[in-house]
């Protein structure tokens, strides 16, 4: 079974999508150089906007309602996820399930009335998970059923945090939701992988203080920070991940980073996540 990482924070604009996309792409590049045939990464987007998918396969990221993520959540029994899986255009070992904005908005409204509403994603994608090494799930900025489905399907949660007062204030609710999922949905193994300080602006004095708060509150769980850079913004508008937008001169040995600060910071994050999940991967492989 793969490492399933849900990138979650119910606050909007904290860099969930950027983190999900670049983490998925970075892992896909690493796996490509690790083995032949390369291991695969699956990116699932629970956000109705499907912005994460735009960076993976723009133009192919949307599908009719019945062949999109929304159908997996609302139809019973769920359709075959295998029939929906598509390959990314920048990395062939990065797969995704296309979205449909309107259908996903409708799904969000339907889910509260449906039976087993919190476990629908886990059930629907369960049969395809053994074919992937990593699954990355991007989530919407809300603590609704879409988010809960993403948490139930996950083995790990990665929490991007904007180092500001408001950026931290929502963490309590997220923590509570994670605990509820562990307790009520029998997911005691759901682990918080770490907190990623995102959108850091070096000049702001508050940033240093808040990072210190985080370190103090979550010892060993604060991951390397990601600074706000133009490369991240431009990569999105080019419909790419930052590793594709600013590639190194050579990918020899699976090198991720180039001279761009954004690639260096996300490469550090990818490596740290691989390190932190290595034991879990080894245990699952056995």
């Amino acid at each position: 079974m793969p490492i399933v990482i849900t990138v979650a924070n119910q606050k909007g604009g904290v860099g969930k999508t950027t983190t999900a996309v670049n983490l998925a792409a970075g892992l896909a590049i690493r796996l490509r150089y690790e083995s032949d045939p390369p291991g695969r990464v699956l990116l699932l987007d629970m956000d109705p906007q499907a912005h994460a998918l735009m960076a993976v396969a723009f133009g192919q990221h949307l599908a009719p309602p019945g062949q999109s993520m929304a159908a997996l959540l609302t139809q019973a029994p769920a359709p075959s996820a295998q029939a929906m899986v598509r390959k990314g255009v920048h990395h062939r070992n990065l797969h995704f399930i296309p979205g449909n904005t309107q259908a996903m908005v409708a799904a969000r409204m339907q889910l509260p009335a449906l039976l087993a509403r919190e476990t629908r994603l886990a059930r629907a994608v369960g049969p395809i998970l053994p074919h992937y090494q990593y699954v990355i799930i991007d989530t919407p900025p809300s603590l609704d059923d879409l988010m809960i489905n993403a948490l139930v399907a996950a083995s790990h949660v990665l929490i991007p945090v904007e180092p500001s007062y408001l950026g931290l204030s929502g963490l309590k609710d997220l923590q509570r939701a994670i605990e509820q999922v562990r307790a009520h949905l029998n997911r005691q193994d759901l682990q918080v992988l770490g907190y990623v300080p995102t959108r850091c602006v070096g000049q702001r004095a508050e940033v240093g203080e808040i990072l210190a708060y985080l370190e103090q509150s979550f010892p060993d769980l604060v991951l390397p920070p990601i600074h706000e850079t133009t490369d991240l913004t431009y990569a999105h508008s080019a419909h790419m991940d930052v590793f594709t937008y600013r590639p190194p001169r050579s990918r020899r040995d699976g090198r991720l980073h180039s001279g761009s600060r954004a690639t260096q910071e996300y490469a550090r994050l990818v490596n740290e996540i691989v390190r932190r999940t290595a034991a879990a991967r080894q245990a699952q492989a056995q």
Partner: protein
Amino acid sequence: MSKRKRFNPLEESDLQSLVDPATQALEGVEAGQELEAVQRIERLRPSQMMPDRFQPRRLLPGQVRERFFAGEIDCYQAAREWLALAARDPAWGERVQELLAMGESFESHGQIKPITGRWVAGREGQFVFEIETGERRFWAACLRAVKEDLEEEPWLRVEVVDQPSRERQVLENRHTQAPSAVSQACEIAALILSSMGLEPDPATRDEFEYFRQAARARVPRGTWPRMEPIMQLSTRRMQQLLALLQLPSPLLELADRHRVPERVLREILALPRGEWERALRRAVKHGMTAEEVERERRRRTGREADAALRQADRVAFQGLRRFIRAVLNAPAESQEEILASVADQVILEGLDAGLMDLMEALALRLQARRRRKS
């Protein structure tokens, strides 16, 4: 200037003890665990599916089959080549017409029975729906799409089954068209191999080679009686059918394509191996029955016996003539020595008793003929 107080939101409420320890955990979901009890009918396109290479009943012509399963051509290119082949070979033409008629019935009445199968990971990591039952429906849709030059791929109704089985394939085959003798032989082999847990090796180039393993295998006790209700055949009959797999693969393919009956194939197998191909082609060409093949075989073996007799006759006479001439042409004083020497050698080689009997029999026949002559 006094520094404004900054609040740490993490300290504003207790993050600990958010869970009521008395809360009973509900039954949860383990990722990857298949919990669906209800099977679902879905719609897929032929390009998302792949027939089972080791399905006992073979549909695709051998020439096209190898390239299709090697991934060199897709299902529509395979259908195009099959149609071209059918235009040249009436045996294929008939089968293609049946499938095209089935494809047209989908258009007018819809596809009544879904295709069954399971999802498997393909070579490139993509998922492919491997057909368990319903390969005819699959090819019917492909052939029709090519024949009608459809712009959009057709949709086919499918049902995902967790554990496909050879038994289901065989039963499905029985419910449709009566299988050919070769198909039946493959079905029997598939059931035996499946009961022994011998799965096909995808690297096998010749699918018949997989089925032949059953003919060579020691069939576990109780296997034959278990197969009888599935095949609706007696054990003896199944064993006779299984023996057909002795034929080389190209001949099995030929016999399957022309649906040559089992009894005809058995008569052909009774011939020397070197004559199988000629006899099968003749049987196909003239639509021969088992009796006709048997008569031909007998006639042929009879003629051979006559020929063998004539050959021995000639050799014996030539040898005798050489012996007579050699002795009579020699001087009178030497003839005695020659006969003595021949007698010594005959004794030495232990041919004396046989030769004396033959000489005696020959002498009696010569006397009778001389009497008749006088």
